[in-house]
């Protein structure tokens, strides 16, 4: 299996000169298997470039197939879908799975982006065959060559973490998620206030989903000092990402969902901090970067 990062930024896309190494496009990850199956997580602004790439292949002839998983429907994770060219090509087939958002089905949410007043291309112009699948967090899905487990993350509304398995490798993606010990904000993750029992319960649930992954891609929006007053924003620090990597016993950790105010140097600093704090741990830490490709070996492990 191969993973290519098309967007690693969080909150909103940013185009500053000091951010070109990690990139300014919002979240989009593309997985492809040996057998040629495609899986995409999130349609942030980065999916525009993935779409261009896919159109050079069978999607350009209307013969492409892909599974799309949506972590949640905040702008930065769906704003690229209207610019995903393979959707506009008849014959392409997609399975698009999402837990939706409180009270709303994923299809209506995506159609809402194409409201007459706000977008020039009507939703009806998406002539590819898209099968929408709505599920409850915790569900297990099977699509193409992929076995998928889901878990609810700690983020306003409904947000889903995904464990994706194919070709004997496992990648888990937790974006966006916040520190569970300080504020439980995901819908139905509630409790009157943070206490040790519930914190442990939710941490274990997430760690189980990410168990022994070859790669864990984890929210790393903030430095510790930036978390003050923002525990309820549903984002993590290096420390939170390391904690999850340890609990889950993963082989590799990729920091992800960088704050739009962070320059390349800031992200470098997060990476150095993560490596310092994980000396003695059995996993390696990297920082996801736009354009980066991660290859997985036969039966697991990154190459």
């Amino acid at each position, binding site marked *: 299996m191969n993973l290519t990062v098309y967007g690693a930024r969080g*909150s*909103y*896309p*940013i*185009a*500053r*000169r000091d*951010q*070109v190494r990690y*990139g*300014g*496009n919002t979240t989009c990850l593309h997985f492809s298997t040996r057998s040629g199956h495609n899986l995409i997580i999130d349609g942030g*602004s980065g999916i*525009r470039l993935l779409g*261009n790439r896919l159109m050079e292949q069978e999607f350009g002839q209307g013969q492409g197939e892909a599974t799309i998983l949506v972590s949640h*429907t*905040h*702008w930065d994770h*769906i*704003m*690229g879908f209207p*610019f995903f060219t393979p959707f506009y090509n008849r014959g392409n087939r997609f399975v698009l799975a999402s837990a939706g*958002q*409180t009270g*709303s089905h994923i299809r209506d*949410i995506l159609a*809402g*982006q194409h*409201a*007459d*007043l*706000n*977008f*020039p291309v009507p939703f009806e112009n998406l002539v590819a065959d898209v099968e929408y699948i709505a599920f409850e967090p915790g569900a297990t899905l099977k699509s193409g060559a992929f076995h998928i487990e889901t878990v609810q993350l700690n*983020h*306003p*509304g409904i947000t889903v973490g995904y464990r994706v398995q194919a070709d004997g490798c496992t990648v888990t993606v937790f974006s966006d998620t916040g520190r569970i010990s300080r504020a439980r904000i995901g819908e139905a993750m509630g409790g009157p206030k943070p206490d040790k029992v519930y914190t442990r319960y939710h941490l274990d649930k997430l760690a189980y989903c990410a168990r022994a992954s070859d790669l864990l891609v984890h929210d790393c929006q903030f430095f510790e000092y930036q978390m003050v007053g*923002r525990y*309820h*924003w*549903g984002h993590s620090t290096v420390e939170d990402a390391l904690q999850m990597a340890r609990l889950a016993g993963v082989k590799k950790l990729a920091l992800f969902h960088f704050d*739009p105010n962070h320059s390349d140097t800031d992200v470098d600093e997060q990476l150095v901090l993560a490596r310092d704090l994980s000396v003695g741990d059995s996993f390696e830490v990297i920082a996801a970067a*736009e354009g980066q490709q991660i290859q997985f070996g036969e039966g697991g492990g990154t190459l």
Partner: protein
Amino acid sequence: MIRVKFWGTRGSITAPGRANIHFGGHTACVEVTAFDVDEPGAATHISGPRLIIDGGSGLATLQGAMMTSACGRGQGELHFLVSHYHWDHLIGFPFFSPMFVAGNQITFYGDTVERLQASIERLFSSTYAPQMESLAARLDYKTIEAEGMNVAGFQVRAAQNRHPGKAMSFRLQYGPHAVVYSTDHEVGDPDTDRALVELARGAQLWILDSMFTPAEWEKSQGWGHSSHIAATELALQAGVETAVLFHHAPAHDDEMLFQMGRDAMTLAGGSSTTVLMARDGLVVDVGRQK
């Protein structure tokens, strides 16, 4: 003197990346400030009339400067002219910090209050936006009166563009100086073009939609955007001092945009109009003593 600062110059969707470093990737956002004193130092204390046209992703870089001044203290008064309600002209608002500071007063001007308010509210609905903080600023919505009205000290007039779902051009007059903003507009309908040329006549600076090359426009007629050649020809008809080509396609990299700029400058060669290519960070002073 009027100072025009371009914070976002791209169309459709934010397009970051190494190949776009020179022109930048943020979508439409232009800050217009007037100064009564014609000295460079006057600009360091922004006290004159100021308004912002469109709230594309360029707002992200504008807000940093704002939050260190009145807007950070809840004493900001901002005026936004909204040309139309397509996302690339609004997508900067959900993370625009001054909207979350109590005491700030933000007024939006659009073609109808109904369309304007519905769009801003959809941007902030909990389906699409995380609502981590409350919208604490006072928000007001107003209709642009086409025949002219005073906005933040500028005399503003509007005219209709040719664009699916409608879009407006604005003329901002301050004393003897005027700036006109015309995106998203497709050149080609004689009546509409004539009205825009009239709106721009006598202005020093005209910002124009130039999303496509002529070949791209052939395949994209009816999308409501113009080629850089058509935009330049329109500017020449109005005889403005400076034309700024704006709303670059996300697929056009720096190399492409430099080439389009050379084409347009060649076309305007020998005329009294100077053509500039908009880029994120560009500042143009109108009416400064030479």
